[in-house]
């Protein structure tokens, strides 16, 4: 399983890439593999303000539907519309296929998340 350096990770297998006050969020290689062929993704609306821990998206495979939780609070400023037509991009390139970008409300929340090493450690135990 690929775990990319320089990203933040959650125990629910989401990743966060921070650029200034903007955070891109997606699901990890482990998550996409566990789900199998992704057939659909439900995206939130731009402008929605959500709290850390809120489910902001649902990723569906043929046999499963999985909520994606927001690792950090923020206002949705971009959604990856390409995924609406080609959800398989998440399978093909999980770290390249961000789902949403949020404007961070509280950067200190990032401190609660794992870095690549910690996530690797977590994965080897949990997953």
């Amino acid at each position, binding site marked *: 399983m690929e775990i990319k350096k320089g990203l933040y990770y959650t125990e629910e297998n989401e990743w966060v890439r921070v650029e200034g006050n903007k955070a891109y969020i997606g699901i990890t290689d482990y998550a996409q593999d566990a789900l199998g062929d992704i057939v659909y993704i439900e995206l939130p609306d731009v402008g929605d303000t959500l709290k850390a821990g809120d489910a902001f998206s649902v990723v*569906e495979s043929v046999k499963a539907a999985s909520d994606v939780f927001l690792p950090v609070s923020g206002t949705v400023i971009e959604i990856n519309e390409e995924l609406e037509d080609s959800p398989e991009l998440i399978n093909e390139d999980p770290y390249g296929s961000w789902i949403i970008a949020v404007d961070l409300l509280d950067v200190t929340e990032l401190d609660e998340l794992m870095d690549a090493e910690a996530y690797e450690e977590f994965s080897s135990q949990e997953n």
Partner: protein
Amino acid sequence: MRDYNKLIFEISREGRKAYSLPKCDVDTLPVDELIPEKYLSSTPTNMPEVSEVDIVRHYTNLSSKNYGVDTGFYPLGSCTMKYNPKINEVVASYDGFRNIHPLQPEETVQGALEVMYELQKALGEITGMSEVSLQPAAGAHGELTGLMIMKAYHRERGEDTKRTKIIVPDSAHGTNPASASVLGYEVVEIESDKNGDVNVEKLKEAMGDDIAGMMLTNPSTLGLFEPNVNEICDIVHAAGGLMYYDGANANAILGVTRPGDMGFDIIHLNLHKTFSTPHGGGGPGSGPVGVSEELAKFLPTPTVEKHGDVYTLNYSKPSSIGKVKGFYGHFGVCVRAYAYILSMGAEGLENVSANAVINANYLMQALKGTYKLPIDRLCKHEFVLGGIENDNGITTLDIAKRLIDYGYYPPTVYFPLTIHEAMMIEPTETESVETLDAFISAMLKIAEEAESTPELLKEAPHNTPVRRVDEVSAARNPIIKYT
């Protein structure tokens, strides 16, 4: 003709027709004089245009691509695919049942009301419940109706806003949590213990004055009778909750024990499972709901009542939850179920359970050495295997698909979720020991093939009208109509 592969739209030819109607014998006016043009459609309906022979051949060919109980053994766990007696189809088609309008004056439908009344009474006796409504259209609809009654009960006591949680065991059918959450309940899942029973200690911990009730299937989806059912009912009742009985597996207990006697307050039955009415390729089913005396006032309206020799529909029940479906439920299905109960009698129903249970145990014992049996104890009407030990990556799905090659409908697979590689087998009482023996041979042969020729399983089925289908592209780019 198993290669027939035409859509009805593809055999359509303009101008062809399969119908005949009498001439319109009244004075007619141009349509736009009757109805203003702005209300009239300007587009065609694009219905196929075919001859009567085309229709008959098309649907006959389609039917030959289907597998039904009449085709062969259908051990689909939790679905009770028993034989659907032909006489039931015949009686349901009697003119006096099939061709009566739901709003006819009651004096013209006394026979229909009598069927409903007598069926309610019989189902009440079979389940030990005080009153029964036939209105719900299916099992899931029965659950919804039952939980609505639960909610109405708590509301009357001023506790509905406080009691927001429904307890469901983790082995429950997905419909249970879905029904609860449709009504706004929060679902609390209770883990099963290692024997597959409800973990009573965990249940006690979950109790509180926020519990509206608990939904329990007994025998459970693992085919096991819940030994602590009395205690479970007591625990939930003591906390002020109600007990809901999911009757999906009632085939195991007819004439043996009754949910009413176990302590349940609300139940539903599936007439299409336990009472032999056909599944129809997905419906119509029927999911009557039964309740204790205390809850009878909440049942949907209208209720069927008998006053002297006259049957009536009662619409004025002030505490009723109201209507959950148009008219009175699936009357046509009820007629079949009533005919079934009459043809079985009390003793026949007891034999149903005895044979359903012995058939399931017989299969379980024969298969358990070869296939994994995660919970090995006396089962009721069904049991759950956990796939097969092998080094070739053979999954439950492969076994299921290979069974098709041997002429069987596969068991329910990957359910319940609590069993890895689950394969849930329910033979029902309408199968003979020879059928079971033949199925056992096929299963054992498949287990051998899993070792010797795994590709036979991986690529199965081989001789079906279509082979394994691409579900991923179906879901990614849905094509749900012909264009």
